[in-house]
């Protein structure tokens, strides 16, 4: 019978750590609701930046929305843009400092509603930036109103009987839309609700960061996430609902990979 170390013996030796919070996240408590995918998405991006040793060369652009305070949580150089204009600001930063790694972090109200023009044109121009897009199908920060990405028949604060596609149109698949443009180089859709999906999302984020160095075009990673407060569910229920309803409409996987 071998000797089994006690809990105190295991945790006092820092060499035994197999996973800990990255130092590129600040100690500020995240402003997100319990169970929100934003926290995981922040952590994955910062982990990849740390592993690639890019923290001194990274400039992030924060959006308007739930993640407006991303600059408080990410311990790198950040800039906050006007609503939806993050790709335009990132374009300017990247053109002035082409050697830096520039990314935007945006939600669906920011990227797919008010910022559609900026997003589409930044993608069409093939700017060498990386866009991280967190899609939860709702305006989370303002109280759960209907967004362009809201699913048909989904109840929100402004569509209490469900989204009626006759009067309100169809959910905007902006990721498929921009994948058709020749200016984009790598387009992928991931989620962060299970350990397996977290690992896949991290791989996609790694690729999106590596491909920026090639200067071949814009890299875009969509992260389908939950909004348990907006959807009025517990975090676990909302993840299940997301699997059953969001994934059929927003299928996961790489949409455009470099040849």
């Amino acid at each position, binding site marked *: *019978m*071998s*000797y*089994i*170390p006690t*809990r105190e013996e*295991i*945790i006092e*030796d820092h060499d*035994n*750590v*197999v*996973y*800990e*919070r*990255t130092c590129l*996240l600040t100690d500020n*408590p*995240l402003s*997100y*609701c*319990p*169970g*929100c*995918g*934003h*926290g*995981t998405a922040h*952590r994955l991006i910062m982990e990849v930046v740390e592993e690639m040793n890019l923290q001194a060369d990274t400039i992030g652009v924060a959006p308007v929305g739930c993640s407006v305070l991303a600059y408080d949580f990410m311990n790198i150089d950040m800039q906050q843009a006007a609503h939806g204009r993050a790709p335009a600001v990132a374009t300017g930063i990247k053109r002035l400092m082409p050697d830096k790694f520039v990314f935007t972090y945006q939600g669906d109200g920011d990227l797919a509603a008010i910022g559609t023009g900026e997003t589409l044109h930044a993608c069409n121009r093939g700017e060498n930036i990386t866009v991280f897009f967190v899609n939860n199908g709702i305006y989370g920060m303002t109280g759960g109103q209907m967004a362009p990405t809201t699913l048909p028949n989904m109840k929100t604060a402004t569509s209490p009987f469900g989204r009626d596609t006759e009067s309100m149109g169809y959910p905007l698949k902006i990721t498929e839309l921009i994948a058709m443009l020749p200016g984009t180089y790598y387009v992928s859709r991931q989620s*962060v*609700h*299970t*350990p397996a999906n*977290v*690992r896949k999302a991290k791989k996609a984020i790694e690729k999106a960061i590596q491909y920026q160095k090639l200067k071949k075009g814009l890299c875009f990673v969509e992260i389908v996430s939950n909004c348990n407060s907006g959807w009025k569910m*517990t*975090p*676990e229920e909302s*993840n299940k609902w997301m699997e059953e309803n969001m994934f059929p409409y927003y299928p996961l996987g790489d949409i455009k990979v470099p040849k």
Partner: protein
Amino acid sequence: MATVKGEIVVNTERCKGCELCVPVCKEKTIAMSANLNSKGYHFASSINDDCNGCTNCALVCPDGAITVYRVKLKEEKVN
């Protein structure tokens, strides 16, 4: 017999009690504490010694509240 032994340390002030770590733990090591942290959330805590350090809980934790440790157990040779 298990050849590895893991331990988790939960930053109880950072934990928001979302319970996402509970279903992903295959060893059923994590449960929500009956106690509250200063924000009023029931935080996650380790309830048994079965942890194998798989890091699943830490991967899905949105707040990065979990640190995972793992040691390899040394087996004695049987002659």
